[in-house]
């Protein structure tokens, strides 16, 4: 065939411009943006628990692995399919597995930080242009390669939580080294962010620990009777693994209600 009618040439040209057919005439990679992920300690507040204790934290260190930022809505990418693997080959893509949406942004790697260290840089995340609606992360256990000293109490654990609990005029200091299963995910942190290629700005996101759950009106330390844990009456408590208090804290720290990601102006 030597002759192709003009309408066919035009039709095929239009079809090949459509990304749905996978033709490569006019493809472009999605724009990506970096965002600083910092500790937002503003929600590590003194709180009153369901058992009447006023709890104040002086230390709340945690070891996490990979913060995923997700969308369940619009992407601004020029192609219709997620581009995560194409844009950032080393990232973990979990399309359909995120449970709270499709992963289109990520702070990869292991991170150990103190939620009392407001403003501390956790890392730089890579974000595709999209409307973000959530975030997920995984717990891990701190290792020497996370930059910890050999005598750091957090080594081998997920959380180091230190604080005081006061009931009436009596106070107890407490410490707990809390372990979550390595890789246990916290899914569905709320996040509202529109990364738009038309807006040129430096992005900073704050990763929060919400001692007070704003939706359920409960606290991270509900169900913990600190006085009952003071076996020797010295007002110093170590919350031991295997105890009810430990199990309640471990359960409470798994709930996404106690975490958030906020956009800093």
């Amino acid at each position: 065939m030597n002759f192709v009618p003009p309408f066919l040439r035009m039709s095929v040209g239009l079809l090949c411009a459509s990304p749905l057919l996978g033709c490569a005439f006019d493809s472009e990679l999605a724009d990506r943006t970096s965002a600083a992920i910092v500790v937002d300690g503003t929600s590590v507040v003194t709180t009153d628990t369901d058992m009447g204790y006023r709890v104040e934290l002086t230390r709340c260190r945690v070891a996490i692995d990979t913060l995923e930022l997700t969308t369940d809505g619009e992407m601004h990418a020029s192609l219709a399919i997620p581009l995560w693997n194409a844009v950032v080959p080393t990232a973990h893509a979990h399309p359909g597995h995120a449970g709270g949406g499709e992963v289109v942004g990520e702070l990869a790697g292991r991170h150990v930080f103190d939620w009392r260290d407001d403003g501390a840089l956790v890392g730089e995340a890579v974000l595709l242009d999209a409307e973000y609606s959530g975030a997920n992360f995984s717990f891990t256990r701190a290792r020497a390669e996370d930059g910890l000293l050999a005598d750091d109490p957090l080594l081998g654990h997920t959380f180091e939580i230190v604080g005081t609990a006061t009931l009436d005029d009596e106070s107890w200091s407490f410490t707990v080294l809390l372990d979550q299963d390595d890789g246990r995910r916290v899914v569905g942190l709320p996040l509202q962010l529109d990364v738009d290629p038309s807006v040129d700005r430096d992005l900073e996101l704050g990763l929060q620990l919400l001692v007070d759950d704003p939706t359920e009106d409960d606290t991270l330390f509900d169900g913990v009777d600190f006085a009952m844990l003071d076996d020797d009456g010295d007002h110093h408590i170590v919350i031991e693994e295997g105890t009810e208090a430990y199990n309640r804290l471990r359960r409470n720290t798994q709930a996404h209600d106690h975490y958030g990601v906020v956009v800093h102006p």
Partner: protein
Amino acid sequence: MQTITRTALRHGAAPLLAWTWLTGACAPAAEDTSLHIDAYGEEFVEDQIPAEALIDGWTIEFSRFVVAISEVEAQGVPLEGTFVVDLTSASMGEGHELGAVMVPAEGHPELGFTVAPPGAGAQAVAATDDDVDQLEREGWSVLAEGEATRGGEVVRFSWGFAAQTRYEPCHGVAELADDAPPRSVLTFHADHLFYDDLDSEEPNVAFDLVASADANADGEVSPEELRAVDITAEERYQVGSRDVTDLWSFIEAQTTTLGHIDGEGHCEAG
């Protein structure tokens, strides 16, 4: 083909692409094949969950494991009907056939199915009319009935669940072009009812906490007795972000994870 190539060089790529587009559109469609769809509970349901599979030494044997399955489809082709299947019925390892649909004989099938309380007109498959009536009357999608034994201990249970779950997509492994005939097996993992974690990728299968719920010591654990078991201080029985605080709600949450495809294949559940 040489003529087309010279033409493409004179007029650019568009004519060549038009030709390939046209010839592609006119290529003969793959022949259809009859995909048979079965439901199967595996040996854990047809025989028992042996003590070796549980961390606390109980053996679990089901006398009935009845599931209501509807909205079955493969490659977008529906298998009409609602099926009430007692998966304890012996199937010689084959599962129980629900029916067959005609699909193009190419690639692997992608399926979907729903587990939900049956309405009127549900069809008994390896089940009795009483099974169908009971699920419809009680508004149950799953009925698990049986007993656990350990040494001389025997604990009975009869639990009906009303959960509604859509499993889709399920990526079948059948070779639609080569298998004769191709089969897809909706597989139900009953041991999930006895997992001790809602999120762990390697949960244990356990019965001790269930057995301990028999508050009136009558040898049977009821849903009411399970509701009375607070799991919030348990070392195991973790629930992630779910608002699940009692053992019945925990087991009920697990009913949404029963459905699989072709043995160990996973489906997206919602």
